[in-house]
């Protein structure tokens, strides 16, 4: 039904405008029922939200006082432009920094693994975690490349930790370093078992942070 704000008309008999008034009440009830508990909620919680569907907005809301704003707007990432949930809090320290909205979400996570997982951090960052293992060839340094999925715009940090020991008389953890190759790949390097001819199994756990 259509919501008509300027009803009823003055002086008319109730039976003329009554349907329009009923229409307004019905329309309000129907629209309010989207995202909210019904006006006739049996538990007297009408007005509570059952879900919140955000219609994407453009730009940034204005100044915020004594409140925080949640909203959806387009965010740019390597995967394309898609609406993401953003938050804007009131301006506070540092005072010379723009009070910009902060991106809260990303459109995918990977919690299946088993060798790579992915989630997101506030501010438009992706975090990837994983592990890689294999057998080091005798006397040959390890150089194994990790490909981040989904591909980010830019890898900022790639940290690897050895889970393996060499075969010296006093076994030591593998040394390790990382090199970022491009926007979605980095390489884990290690001298592994050094110049020893013994083949050993290796395993590294790693974490990387990238911009969406």
């Amino acid at each position, binding site marked *: 039904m259509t919501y008509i704000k300027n009803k009823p008309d003055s002086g008319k008999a109730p039976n003329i405008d009554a349907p329009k008034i009923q229409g307004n009440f019905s329309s309000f009830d129907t629209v309010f029922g989207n995202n909210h508990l019904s006006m006739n909620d049996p538990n007297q919680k009408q007005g509570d939200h059952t879900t*919140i569907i955000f219609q994407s907005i453009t730009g940034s809301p204005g100044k915020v006082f004594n409140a925080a*704003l949640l909203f959806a707007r387009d965010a740019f990432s390597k995967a394309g432009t898609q609406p993401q949930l953003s938050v804007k809090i009131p301006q506070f320290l540092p005072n010379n920094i723009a009070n910009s909205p902060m991106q809260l979400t990303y459109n995918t996570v990977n919690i299946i693994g088993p060798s790579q997982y992915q989630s997101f951090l506030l501010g438009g960052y992706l975090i990837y975690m994983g592990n890689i293992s294999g057998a080091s060839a005798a006397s040959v340094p390890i150089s194994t490349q990790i490909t981040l999925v989904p591909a980010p715009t830019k890898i900022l940090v790639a940290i690897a930790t050895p889970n393996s020991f060499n075969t010296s008389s006093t076994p030591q953890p593998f040394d390790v370093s990382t090199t970022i190759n491009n926007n979605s790949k980095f390489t884990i390097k290690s001298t592994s078992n050094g110049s020893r001819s013994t083949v050993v199994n290796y395993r590294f756990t790693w974490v990387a*942070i990238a911009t969406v």
Partner: protein
Amino acid sequence: MTAKSYDPNTPQFLSDSFAISQKQVQLNFQTLFDAFARNHVSLTAAANAGNHNVIELLGQPNPIQTDVGEINIYTKNVEEQTEQVFFRYQGNPGQEFQFTNYQIYSLPPEKGLNQYFTFLPGRLIVYFGDFKGATKQNPGTITLELNPGIAKKIIGMTFCPNITIANSPSVRVLPEENGFFKKIDVFSSTGFELGPPDSFYIIVAET
């Protein structure tokens, strides 16, 4: 009858004709319309009426209570900060935790240093980036400055060289300054090198 902003007791008398209550009824409809337009797609929109275009969470003086089957998101002022977003899980006393923490912004790169930060729910800040280590021309300890300097307690650190092949550096948190831990010394873990190698880092702290 004088019309006021919103009067649910309208029409006031069963005998009222619309000539008496018309203005108040119209005002009630108008007030409902205007109030609903805040945060929502308009009642008269052709599509998506009832959906939200923004949610303005006004600062609450106290934590919001929840019943079983409910979770709550609300805003509350935080001492030494500003209004921040909080969550509370079902059932009092469901755990309340602070979700937002600080204004995220880009830190300009400095010589030999790329630094970033974000935060995690629970009033945690995550510093991450990379720094250039010691060189023959500049041997010794590297002092890494945490920016923004709002860490009240360092709770986790991890470093990894990004040059082949080096030992992961060792670290030492420098004494707090006015209640905040702002600097970390990074040095060679073996003592046989010039100093720490070029490295990536991730540091998690309470604020």
